[in-house]
């Protein structure tokens, strides 16, 4: 007859299994939070929208405009930025922000169907220069 209060091997294994499961769940949660912390998705999302909105605003302005776009260095300088037509088939102008293989795009409107494409890599700040409805986008360093 088993004594009251003693723990069988089966119960011990179950408790150990539960502990292992809790540790595993804890590991999953911390790694999930870490992945969010390192996530640059929001930066890309924000920059693509902000730059597309800026291009729309520049093209809406009636005269010539020179504009320096600067954020804190770390946000921009780790990114590759492209202002271009996404593909020749649909000819759609977009701002494309790329970081470590992942990318985000957002459309903007050009003042004419003529093609334009600018590629800027790891800038500290960007210079937008609009003269006679022609835009130039360059690194500003």
């Amino acid at each position, binding site marked *: 007859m088993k004594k009251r209060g003693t723990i069988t091997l089966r*119960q011990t294994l*179950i408790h150990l299994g*539960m502990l292992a*499961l*809790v540790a595993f*769940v804890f590991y*999953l*949660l911390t790694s*999930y*939070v870490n992945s*969010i912390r390192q996530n640059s*998705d*929001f930066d890309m*999302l*924000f920059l693509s*929208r902000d730059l597309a*909105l800026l291009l*729309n*605003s520049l*093209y*809406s302005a*009636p005269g010539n405009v020179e504009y320096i776009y600067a954020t804190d260095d770390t946000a921009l300088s780790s990114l590759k930025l492209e202002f271009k*037509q996404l593909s020749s088939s*649909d*000819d*759609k*102008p977009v701002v494309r922000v790329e970081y470590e293989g992942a990318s985000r795009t*957002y*459309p*903007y*409107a*050009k*003042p*004419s*169907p003529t093609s334009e494409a600018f590629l800027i890599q790891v800038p500290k700040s960007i210079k937008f220069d609009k003269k006679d409805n022609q835009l130039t986008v360059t690194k500003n360093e």
Partner: protein
Amino acid sequence: MNKKASMDTILNLFRLFFLIVVFFSVVFLARAFIVEKIDLFEIESKLLNYRIAFSDRISYVDSDTGRKHIGIIDLEKFTSDDFAKNLLNSIYYGKINSEASAKIVLRDLDANQGYDVFYEKFYNKELYDEKKVIVEAKLTGAGAAKRLDTGFYVLIKDKDDFRRGILNVEAILPNR
């Protein structure tokens, strides 16, 4: 298996289920605090409305100086057959524009005809007609769209005559 052992199994299954619920709750809560969408609708649609209203495809442009007179609508341009095509090319979202559309109504306040005189034009009419139905059905989420109206008091230039008018631009943009 005795009765106590089967009770233990049920209890352990219940614990496991509870653990899974806790895990998903934490994930759900964490996701709730992450911003995944930035809604630009209001600023973007307002910008489109102003861009249309201030466009040289609508405004009177002095042929001698090349100066664009914002707020003075050239009726000849507005009523021309090429108006929609010209406007689409001056606010160019690509060959297939699935990004923005608008209805533009110019109301002549000094027409003295005894009835309201107004001119109705569209920027990207196909998309406007498609999305207007969705806006009126008040659908939300992906595939739906939103509408924003902006009114401008303007002068209408009809040859050498200037009349008062209201330019109403109603932008419809799909949700992004």
